[in-house]
């Protein structure tokens, strides 16, 4: 596939490799509201139950790991659909439900707007500025 909606930085991939040795297969759900809001939450597969209210944005392939599915709620996706997401990792406060938290790190989303080619590829219409 020429374009991806979600990618990972090298540092984030390294952490995912490390976490998978303890937790096995992993997945992400992008949190949107309060508490750990606006952050990608990483869980072992089966710990977080997705539903028909969630959309699978991307199946992330990292060498040596099982594919990692990245989910977001469908209603939130309506506002996010014009952005490309990169999962990065930064020093964190060591608290929260996402499994990398005890490592003293925190996954973080870096966003950029989709290019015209990507907009077309993903079947979107260009946003008209108001």
């Amino acid at each position, binding site marked *: 596939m020429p374009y991806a909606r979600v990618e990972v930085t090298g540092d984030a991939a390294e952490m995912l490799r490390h976490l998978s040795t303890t937790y096995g297969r992993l997945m992400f759900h992008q949190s*949107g*509201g*309060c508490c750990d*809001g*606006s*952050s990608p939450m990483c869980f072992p597969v089966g710990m977080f139950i997705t539903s028909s209210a969630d959309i699978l944005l991307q199946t992330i392939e990292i060498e040596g790991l099982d594919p990692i599915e990245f989910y977001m709620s469908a*209603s*939130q996706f309506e*506002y*996010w659909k014009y*952005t490309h997401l990169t999962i990065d990792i*930064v*020093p*964190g*406060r060591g608290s929260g439900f996402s499994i990398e938290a005890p490592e003293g790190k*925190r996954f*973080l*989303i*870096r*966003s*950029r*707007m989709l290019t015209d080619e990507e907009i077309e590829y993903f079947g979107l219409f260009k946003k008209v*500025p*108001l």
Partner: protein
Amino acid sequence: MIGAQSSNDQLEKILSYIDIGKQEGAKLLIGGERSDLGGELSGGFYMQPTVFEGNNSMRIFQEEIFGSVLSLTSFKDYDEAIDIANDTLYGLGAGVWSRSADTLDHYQQTKNLLVSYAEGPMGFF
């Protein structure tokens, strides 16, 4: 002066929202950068007070940034303001400031209808 963010990851998250705000075309009116207070406070998780101007479909309007970032939009009349306020996934709190007592009365009398109709979300001004 604004107090420090609770952690580095929180500060980084706020900065990433300022970045996407600019990319989405919001106008940065003030602030937008990490704040260096110098001396022994240097390196602290301080953020400048930040104000954006944009529209309610932008991610900086719709999402909870949990930082010193205010997003402003305009409206032409009361009904449009209420529509904008209701256009949210996360209704937490709402308020109306007006110089007109009539406007405030109208809001007081109708706001409960809006809450019961929308099952909660009222928007955040």
